[in-house]
């Protein structure tokens, strides 16, 4: 582990501590939902971090297809793994938030449904990597999938949103509406920074492990 990575890890730890303080100590109790709303401070940043990671996957996949760079492949592989982890957290925390708020563990709400489909897509990516024996071929195939997956995210969200909202009454309580007071936004942004630092730390460590694994096999 390099020094920058180590520093990043410590920064992430500080950020997480700050995030928790802000989420529970600074942000006030929400009027309509009560303290259950505090779940949003991990739920929303998690999906932002995940989708940021998937954007990186797209760039790295295209780069790998263009240059066949092993480093680009490692970026894609590591970012997908980390993205899937954070997206999984988003889905589960969303479900946990939904139980007291909406009364059920699951609804076919547009956002929850789209995010889960995207999650399944990238889970398939990880499966593909695992099931390809030749690592160089695995990298190529994954890069093709990573390139296709990104525009698919947009198509999935659009189609599911239309499916859910057109000719139907406006959906239930939104997880976090755009008209939130500033202090709530601040709490979300602080936690976003913290989770983002953690994700970056994870990606760098994972990439380092991938490089050493490849060298060990060589």
């Amino acid at each position, binding site marked *: *582990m390099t020094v920058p990575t180590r520093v990043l890890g410590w920064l992430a730890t500080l950020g997480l501590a700050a995030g928790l303080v802000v989420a529970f100590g600074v942000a006030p*109790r929400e009027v*309509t*939902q*009560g*303290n*259950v709303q*505090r*779940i949003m401070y*991990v*739920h929303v940043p*998690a999906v932002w971090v995940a989708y940021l990671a998937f954007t990186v996957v797209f760039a790295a996949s295209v780069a790998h297809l263009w240059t066949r760079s092993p480093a680009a492949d490692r970026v894609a592989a590591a970012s997908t793994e*980390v993205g899937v*982890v954070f997206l*999984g*957290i988003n889905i*589960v*925390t969303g479900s*946990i*938030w939904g*139980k*007291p708020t909406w009364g059920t563990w699951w609804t076919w709400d547009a956002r929850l449904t789209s995010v889960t489909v995207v999650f399944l897509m990238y889970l398939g990516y990880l499966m593909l990597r695992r099931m390809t024996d030749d690592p160089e071929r695995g990298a190529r195939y994954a890069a093709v999938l990573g390139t296709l997956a990104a525009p698919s995210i947009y198509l999935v969200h659009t189609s599911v949103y239309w499916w859910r909202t057109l000719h139907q009454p406006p959906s239930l309580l939104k997880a976090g509406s755009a008209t939130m007071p500033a202090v709530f936004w601040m709490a979300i942004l602080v936690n976003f920074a913290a989770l983002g630092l*953690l994700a970056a730390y*994870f990606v760098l*460590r*994972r990439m*380092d*492990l991938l490089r*050493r*694994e490849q060298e*060990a096999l060589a």
Partner: protein
Amino acid sequence: MPDNWGYVLAAYGVAVVVLTAYWRSLVRRDRALSALGDRRARPAGTGQRQAAAPADRRPGPGARSRTT
């Protein structure tokens, strides 16, 4: 509206558990790779002892009979 702290705890708990588990898997792989690296590096340091070992393992006269 009741505060449902149980749910808040569950949600944050899930996040902590998942992130910790992932971090630990990274650390575990790191250690495994380092150990592998050490094992491979060791023969270079104690080369003479290692080079002698195969010779020791070769069966001595009468140590093991061979069917012809």
